[in-house]
């Protein structure tokens, strides 16, 4: 099955191609990042913060976009009509949680989430919880309805995390 001619690039006369080398190096760098993620908590922490839009700066967050992250982490979200703790919950809390495949903040920012949860033009409270190999990041957001239409996103400071 294996044809060594197909995998060997070194048999050919080397023609300098910096673009090719840069892309290969870039891929190697990202692969190393991914392979180290389970073993280095700091990498997982960065990635969890990226998923919750809680990276220290937008530019650092944006620089991570090439890192593929399809269906990463156990991401849960909960949407409420009242501030957390305002109403005594009679129902089991677990009933409100649903899983999201990746980037759980999508339930606020992506078109489907906006349609499902923000069509009413009433305030909503979102809680996001992502976990990866024992690390958990929880974030709370208040989506405040604006008189002129749309919402203002307010990050609620009291967040629980065990990173």
């Amino acid at each position, binding site marked *: *099955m*294996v*044809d*060594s*001619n*197909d*995998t060997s*690039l070194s*048999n*050919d*006369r080397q*023609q300098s*191609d910096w*673009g*090719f080398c840069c*892309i290969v190096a870039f*891929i190697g760098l*990202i*692969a190393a990042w*991914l*392979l180290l*993620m*389970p073993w280095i908590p700091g990498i997982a922490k960065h990635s969890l913060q990226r998923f919750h*839009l809680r990276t220290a700066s*937008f530019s650092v*967050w*944006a620089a991570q*976009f*090439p*890192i*593929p*992250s*399809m*269906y*990463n*982490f*156990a991401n849960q979200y909960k949407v409420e009509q009242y501030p957390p703790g305002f109403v005594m919950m009679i129902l089991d809390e677990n009933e409100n949680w649903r*899983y*999201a*495949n*990746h*980037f759980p*903040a*999508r339930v*606020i*920012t*992506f*078109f489907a989430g*906006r*349609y499902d949860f*923000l*069509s009413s033009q009433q305030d909503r409270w979102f809680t996001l919880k992502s*976990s*990866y*190999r024992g690390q958990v990041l929880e974030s709370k957001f208040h*989506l405040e309805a*604006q008189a002129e239409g*749309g*919402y203002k*996103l307010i990050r609620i400071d009291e967040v629980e995390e065990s990173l």
Partner: protein
Amino acid sequence: MNKITQAFQRLQSAGLNRPLAAYRLVQAAILISLFWKWEFFLQANSIYANTPVEDPFFPDWLRSVTTIRFAFWGSALATGISLITSINLLRKTCSWLGFFGITLMCVHQGSYNDMTFVTIWWCCLWSVWLSHRVDTDQQELLMRRAAFLSRLIISLILLGGAAGKWTPEYWSGEVLFDIYFLDRDFWLFNYLRANYEPAELQEIAKWYSRQIVVVETISGIGLWVLPARWAALIATIILSVIVILSNKYLVSVIACLIGLACVGFFVPRRPRNAATLASPATEEPAAN
């Protein structure tokens, strides 16, 4: 496999410029991915205009629906032109424009989370590189490098999926049970819900999830070391199965990757005895 190889050898003898053909195939696949998102674009166009979310984390212009409109249409138009043009300079320019537009989609508030734009971005990066090399006189070397890069990119994307699933919630099937098995309207999950009890579904979800973790891990780590045509075949099968067994929305994420995977089929098979020759194999570029 031999039939596929023979078909491509016939195309070569007919004067096919392999790198250019591979480039065009990937552009067509990118267009399929983009326009599979047509419904997204229509709905996003309306919802983002009517329900803006003010978040200081994103710069204003990366929350604007106007930016998405320009980025989406600009990328589609540039990719369409780069697919059909025979002018090298125009092809290079359009590759860069498509790359730039998709980069915006990857960091825009309304589309950053959609993996479609990340997989397209990697295809665009590959396209930019190839567009600057396509007129080389060493077509075989270029084709091998293009195929190597393509399977390296696909491996990386699968590895990215795998690494994030190396966590107990995926090994137990808990995550995918909630996302897919509970209420997803797709032929496979509708069938399973109609024929199995909830406890059985959880067991099926566990093994469904585990096979995804294993397949993504193995292919993420090992696909790029396979020979070009075998990697192309295996990647195409794996990517197609992901769509068939998951959901139709993944077509947009996967279609461009299948196009990229097929680049491996364009690598010419060398005669066995040619491996012992020291001289490089070169092909003159054929007419467009």
